[in-house]
């Protein structure tokens, strides 16, 4: 009997915790969007746009790592690949920006389908190594292929007119377009994560064998998650190509794949807001270091080591853990 009571207490406690965190989340989301709306009047818009692109990239990555439990070490392929596709379509073929971005997303999804097809054949550590190897293969392809224009990259991509009316060369127009795409992208991820499909992904993360024995075709779900994550990472890359008006090899290197892992890890794996905060911090740090002369890779490497050793929940994860502990005590 005492066991039953404690279960009840546990249940109400959890409900309170869930309610508290939900209320808090919505307040923070509202405040965050408000801040992003006024931000370009206070902060350099280019920096904000870079932040938003990488935040979307990290959220897309987190869809795979945080909610499906798959560590991809090859996400630069989708980010940088999509940037190349968009830059090429807009500059060489003269496509409007929205069509270029759609092409980038489609291309990234296709790359995701191919890479995912091979990678989901192995699990855990092998999955990470396979994605890394395949993305290195894509890197070599980009080095040799003429359409990427080699070491120079595709430079001077015109921003153009969005659907023929909105001039993206104006900084504020560009910023609000980026913000809109970012919000749509994050909303899409939120919907995916909280859909029945997303629940199955979580069950795969928690216990893959049980998901199999319950009759789910785990391989298909993993592949689906991989393609979605790739497409959204591609969206971020395409957007970045339009904002910065170039696409280069930097975005397809393994360092870039590592960077997005760091953003997610630092912010909090498996949280909605974590990757956004992580990306902002990493981009902010890089911007600061760029002028100081201190090598960025040492800093990111150190943060990596510290996070893995003592800060595995990340900023947002740690915040929730402390908050829930306090609610539990009351």
């Amino acid at each position, binding site marked *: 009997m005492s066991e039953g009571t404690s279960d009840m207490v546990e249940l109400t406690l959890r409900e309170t915790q869930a309610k508290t965190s939900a209320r808090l989340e919505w307040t923070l989301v509202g405040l965050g969007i408000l801040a992003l709306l006024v931000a370009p009047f206070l902060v350099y818009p280019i920096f904000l746009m870079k932040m938003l692109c990488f935040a979307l990239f990290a959220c897309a990555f987190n869809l795979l790592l945080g909610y499906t439990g798959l560590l991809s070490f090859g996400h630069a392929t989708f980010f940088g690949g999509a940037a190349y596709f968009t830059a090429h379509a807009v500059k060489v073929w003269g496509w409007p920006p929205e069509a270029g971005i759609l092409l980038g997303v489609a291309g990234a999804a296709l790359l995701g389908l191919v890479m995912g097809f091979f990678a989901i054949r192995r699990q855990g550590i092998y999955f990470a190594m396979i994605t890394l190897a395949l993305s290195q293969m894509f890197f070599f392809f980009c080095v040799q292929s003429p359409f990427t224009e080699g070491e120079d990259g595709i430079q001077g991509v015109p921003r153009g007119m969005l659907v023929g009316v909105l001039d993206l060369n104006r900084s504020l127009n560009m910023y609000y377009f980026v913000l809109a795409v970012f919000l749509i992208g994050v909303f899409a991820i939120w919907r995916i994560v909280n859909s029945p499909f997303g629940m199955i992904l979580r069950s795969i993360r928690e216990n893959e064998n049980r998901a199999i024995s319950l009759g789910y075709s785990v391989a298909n779900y993993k592949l689906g998650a991989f393609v979605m994550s790739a497409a959204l990472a591609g969206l971020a890359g395409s957007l970045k190509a339009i904002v910065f008006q170039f696409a280069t090899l930097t975005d397809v290197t393994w360092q870039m794949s590592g960077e997005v892992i760091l953003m997610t890890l630092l912010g909090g794996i498996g949280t909605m807001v974590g990757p956004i905060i992580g990306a902002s911090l990493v981009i902010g740090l890089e911007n600061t270091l760029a002028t100081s002369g201190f090598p960025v890779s040492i800093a990111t*490497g150190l943060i990596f080591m510290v996070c893995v050793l003592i800060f595995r929940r990340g900023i947002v994860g740690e915040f929730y853990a402390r908050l829930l502990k306090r609610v539990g005590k009351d």
Partner: protein
Amino acid sequence: MTMIFGIPVQAFLGQLLVGLINGSFYAMLSLGLAVIFGLLRVINFAHGAQYMLGAFVGYLLLTYLGIGYWPALILAPLIVGVFGIVVERLALSRLYDLDPLYGLLFTFGLALVLEGIFRYYYGVSGNPYAVPPLLAGGTNLGFMFLPNYRGWVVVASLIVCFGTWALIEKTRLGSYLRAATENPHLVQAFGVNVPLLLTLTYGLGSALAGLAGILAAPIYQVSPLMGSDLIIVVFAVVVVGGMGSILGAIVTGYTLGLAEGLTKVFYPEASNLVVFVIMAIVLLVRPAGLFGRDA
């Protein structure tokens, strides 16, 4: 001039030799990765950085202390091995109870730091390291010209690979190691100091990477980036071979090196890609890897 498949035999054998040299390094590095993974369940991303560290230790010993190649051949692996032991004691040993992915991420961070430090002080360009006088020059084998140092690297890597294999498969220490791979708790209960075994294993794996580094120094230039490009190919080698067996790692390493050399003869553009393509094919046909056990 003799021709093979329409290609001069000299060029053919020359590329094959390059492939054999690359394969020697793939074999030594994937061997170290397999040894570490077998016991620690950690994929050592820093393996490439430790290989670079080995080469740099040799270079620094020569530049600042005037210590030449042969002592460096002992000292470099020793120093890198001790470095590995310190890393394992301070950090890696705290991660064993967690998902193995954290080990990968930690060593990835370590690799970034090591590479960053050397890049900061020595730039990205390579520093030449002279071939030791004893092995300078070459030998005419009749059908081809073999630079002596390259011949030595092939021999040395074979000795290292089979030495490690013998250590693990044929000695008492190796049998402890293999037993601890199967069931560490049981082995500990028998009175073997398993944590010490883990530390020594990581040290040994790191030392192997350091040794490969100093062997590589006279062939490739000593550069901060020499490890990171190599390690990704070695990961592909490991996926192809599977990490179940030491011998498997060695054989796969040499085979893929040779395959790469052959591709360079017939279709040079694809030589960077061939290892990855082979990996993809193996994943389709035998997902567990050629020598893998964990299907």
